[in-house]
């Protein structure tokens, strides 16, 4: 009986406690809040444990040869947990009453369980040391998402969205597998270290086909051009909390996948992949920004915006390892916070209305603080200082520019103007447009109010207060 090292505890915990949450359903009534409470405790406990890992000592934290918990892994885990926690809080109201003119959802315990599994998939991806674990992690992160997208059984859009999602997702999986197979064939091994050695020793068409298929496969999850086409429909069709989780957790997993690949096994040919990455980044953010220009439904709007954000994240992949990792982690934190802030506001709006630009009208008159929160999140997503979003983008561009890709950076920065344009559209709807007819009063639950305030403060201060970014950076350098 080998001893379990302490740094593995969070992963183990995350693996088992969804089962407890779901299993508990057998013993308590459907009305009971117990699973919900437990889930909260579980996630928060995991988050705290994760923060303790750096103190657990041991430079190389490797568990049975193919499960390593490096600094990047720990920080990614924190991002994923934060996202899961926020997603759970966001989803709670949708299980208490219908929203966005859709019926109420059921089985919160299973819902949380699914989120937890997806998160665990993310954990697996960042701690994988061989292709198999890697692949499994990706699948564990993806499959629950399919289910989540269709969670609202009584909503026809949900099922359609799920269908599109899973069909395209499986094709993407096929691509990835194909890529893996060639990678395996090229290096003759599944283990990253050996693959890296093989790649370093020299490349061949096999390797490049593999790279191509891997990028196309992950391009689907990361909504890169032209693999993003599912995103707007799925984001719109899926329940709002699922959309939020999709836009953060699944993106985070995908980008983690790329980071692990590009700075792990494929690191010797990073410079050769640079043109492809640059192209993907540039085209994706451009298309995403263009698509968002004339939207009227909030979640579809957020879909395009998140496509553009994916493009921005890709810019960072051009930089050296430490810089890029710091940038990406920091940006993911910021992006998660801003995004969830937006979604929380939408959920409050959508309680009695549809989630469209129309129903934002007159918000500033009706509830100024909510309008301010919305403005903050939008400006943060648009990358306006001193909000966190700007510093996030600044990290990304810094990483991209540090290897001299000024043209791409300039292009990305110019795209910010288009981005600002459509974010302003939304702010205009909330601040300038006069409401047409009577406005149904907004009701904020205590939780919603607290979370919105918390997130707003975070968005404001995570940026110019150097706490977060300096700590992340320190995490990589010391």
């Amino acid at each position: 009986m080998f001893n379990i090292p302490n740094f593995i505890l969070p992963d183990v915990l995350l693996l088992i406690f969804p089962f407890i949450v779901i299993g508990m359903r057998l013993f308590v009534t459907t009305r009971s809040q117990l699973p919900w409470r437990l889930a909260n405790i579980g996630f928060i406990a995991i988050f705290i444990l994760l923060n303790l890992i750096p103190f657990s000592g041991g430079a190389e934290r490797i568990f049975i040869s193919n499960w390593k918990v490096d600094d990047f892994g720990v920080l990614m885990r924190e991002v994923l947990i934060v996202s899961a926690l926020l997603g759970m809080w966001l989803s709670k109201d949708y299980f208490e009453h219908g929203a966005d003119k859709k019926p109420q959802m059921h089985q919160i315990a299973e819902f949380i369980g699914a989120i937890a599994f997806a998160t665990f998939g993310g954990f697996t991806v960042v701690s994988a040391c061989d292709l198999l674990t890697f692949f499994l992690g990706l699948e564990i992160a993806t499959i629950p998402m399919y289910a989540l997208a269709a969670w609202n059984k009584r909503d026809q859009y949900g099922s359609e969205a799920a269908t599109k999602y899973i069909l395209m997702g499986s094709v993407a999986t096929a691509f990835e597998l194909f890529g893996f197979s060639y990678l395996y064939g090229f290096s003759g091994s599944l283990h990253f270290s050996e693959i890296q050695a093989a790649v370093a020793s020299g490349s061949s068409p096999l390797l490049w086909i593999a790279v191509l298929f891997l990028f196309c496969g992950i391009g689907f999850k990361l909504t890169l051009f032209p693999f993003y086409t599912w995103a707007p429909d799925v984001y719109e069709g899926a329940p709002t909390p699922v959309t939020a989780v999709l836009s953060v957790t699944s993106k985070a997993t995908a980008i983690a996948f790329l980071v692990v690949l590009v700075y792990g096994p494929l690191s010797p040919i990073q410079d050769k992949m640079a043109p492809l990455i640059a192209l993907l980044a540039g085209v994706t953010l451009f298309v995403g920004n263009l698509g968002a220009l004339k939207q009227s439904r909030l979640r579809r709007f957020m879909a395009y915006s998140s496509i553009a954000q994916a493009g921005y994240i890709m810019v960072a992949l051009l930089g050296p390892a430490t810089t890029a990792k710091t940038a990406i982690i920091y940006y993911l934190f910021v992006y998660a916070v801003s995004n969830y802030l937006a979604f929380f506001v939408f959920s409050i709006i959508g309680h009695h209305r549809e989630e469209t630009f129309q129903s934002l009208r007159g918000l500033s008159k009706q509830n100024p603080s909510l309008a301010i929160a919305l403005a903050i999140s939008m400006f943060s997503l648009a990358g306006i200082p001193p909000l966190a979003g700007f510093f996030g983008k600044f990290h990304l561009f810094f990483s991209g520019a540090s290897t001299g890709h000024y043209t791409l950076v300039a292009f990305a920065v110019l795209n910010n103007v288009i981005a600002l344009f459509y974010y302003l559209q939304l702010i205009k709807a909330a601040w300038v447009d006069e409401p047409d007819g009577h406005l149904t009063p907004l009701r904020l639950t205590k939780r919603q109010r607290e979370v919105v305030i918390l997130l707003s403060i975070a968005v404001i201060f995570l940026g110019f207060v150097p706490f977060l970014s300096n700590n992340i950076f320190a995490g990589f350098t010391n």
Partner: protein
Amino acid sequence: MNLLNCLILAFLLFGIGVWGLMRRRHLIGMLISIELMLNAANINFISFAYFTAHDATAGALFSIFVIAVTACEMAIALAIIVTMYRRHKSLDVDQLRDLHD
């Protein structure tokens, strides 16, 4: 019977899968063609494992895992398609056009 033939076979299979995916308008049919694509990957793994790779077990193992994982995926897919059917009373892809710009 050498590596290249197997790879070509796998690639053809993949291509057939793609072709079917494009041609089919029936969800189940599309699922099946996706299965073909996945299995093409499996063939790749097996053949690499058999011919070149220095740890042959890994490849075989991988393909087995793939089969298992795909099974789950297909299960979910079928479940979703069932709910689809409940709503639309058809499995024709052309009718999936409620969500669009």
